């Protein structure tokens, strides 16, 4: 009996080790390409999240990485793109992570003018439920567009929540955790931006773009 259990356990362990090796090898082989694709996708999403902002040059020029630990949402480094016109700061784009999505973290790109008015939000990466939570994606529904033009004064801070939580913004039928995670991350990011605005725009670019 114990022999039998022992043998089964060892077989399982051996199979698990082989499978782990297989996944690890694939991960190593694809890591660089996946990172490059994610960066390309982020850069592609930048301009759509800057609706109505006049700017000069390339949006990717002035990249700032805010390493952990930081007061922004999520446990990843936050990437900020500073946008200028005539050498004056006009807007900033934050790539932040909402840590508390329904099925894991949600990567969000938030664009806001220098004064903190939202110019656009895009979901970069998520694993939310198809048909319910995935309506946060701009291609699946208009949900993300309702934030455009709003800022921390409009509505008041307490209004930055779903209607069912006493706030101002529409929920999604069948999903409450997903939109709540997105709104919370947005609010935190806007608060951080308001508090650290000058600091963000005065720092030298430290993104690793050549």
């Amino acid at each position, binding site marked *: 009996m114990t022999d*039998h259990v022992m*043998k*089964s356990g060892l*077989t*399982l362990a051996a*199979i*698990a080790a082989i*499978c*782990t090796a*297989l*996944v690890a090898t*694939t*991960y190593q082989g*694809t890591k660089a*390409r*996946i990172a490059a*694709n*994610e960066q*390309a*996708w982020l850069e592609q999403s930048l301009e759509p999240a800057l609706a109505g902002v006049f700017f000069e040059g390339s949006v990717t020029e002035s990249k700032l990485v805010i390493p952990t630990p930081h007061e922004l949402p999520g446990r990843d480094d936050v990437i900020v793109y500073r946008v200028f016109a005539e050498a004056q700061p006009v807007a900033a784009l934050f790539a932040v992570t909402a840590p508390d999505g329904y*099925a894991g973290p949600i990567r969000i790109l938030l664009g806001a003018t220098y004064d903190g008015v939202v110019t656009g939000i895009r979901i970069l990466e998520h*694993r*939310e*439920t*198809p*048909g319910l939570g*995935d309506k946060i994606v701009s291609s699946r529904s208009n949900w993300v567009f309702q934030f455009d033009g709003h800022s921390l004064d409009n509505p008041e801070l307490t209004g930055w929540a779903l209607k069912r939580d006493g706030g101002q913004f529409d929920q999604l039928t069948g999903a409450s955790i997903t939109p709540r995670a997105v709104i919370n991350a947005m609010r935190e990011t806007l608060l951080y931006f308001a508090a650290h605005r000058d600091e963000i725009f005065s720092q030298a670019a430290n993104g690793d773009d050549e």
Partner: protein
Amino acid sequence: MSEGSFVERLQTGLWADNPGLVQLLGLCPLLAVTTTFVNGLGLGIATLFVLTFSNILVSATRRWIQHDIRIPVYVLIIASLVTCIELIFKAWFPSLDRSLGIFIPLIVTNCAIVARAEVFASRNSVMSSFADGIGMGIGFTVLLVTIGFVRELVGQGSILSRMDMLVGGDAMSGLVLVDGGWLLAVLPPGAFFCLALAVAAKSAIDRRRLLARHAKMPRRLRQSPHG
């Protein structure tokens, strides 16, 4: 289930025992992603890959795996293969990966794969398990692209749109016949209608063949085609 030749196994998977049409397995991804041809093809290829390799691995290890731990072993093998294919899609077909979203990782739960591991690969040689994986995988893919093609044509009025997600390059709109279409086709009910039509078409063809064969038989050997 008999071993059969390579060609026989392919035919079984493609037609006689098609995982989608006959076994009605893996319907969740089948119904969810087949809004366009390219989505169906992408998920079909991913499933084909996982199915073939899981069949090979399950068959190759079948002599060492004790009966009572076989299911955890299948789950381990299938989950690892799906993780690998997900990484490969993220690296080489990023826009297709975004379009298919969660359905790539959800291949783990496609019961067609674990069903082939249990019913076929764990009892047959590596070679015929490989053939079974290819046959079943292609059978599933053909069904996915057929439904995707029809839903895209009826629902959006286009043929082969966004093939760039698979072959790379600039965004391709495909062949646009009319702008917009019958929206119901791309919505979930359209998926059920298309699947129902496909199953009905297969039954009709099978019945016609059976009747034709029946007519050629000597009278004393004839049986009712309904029997």
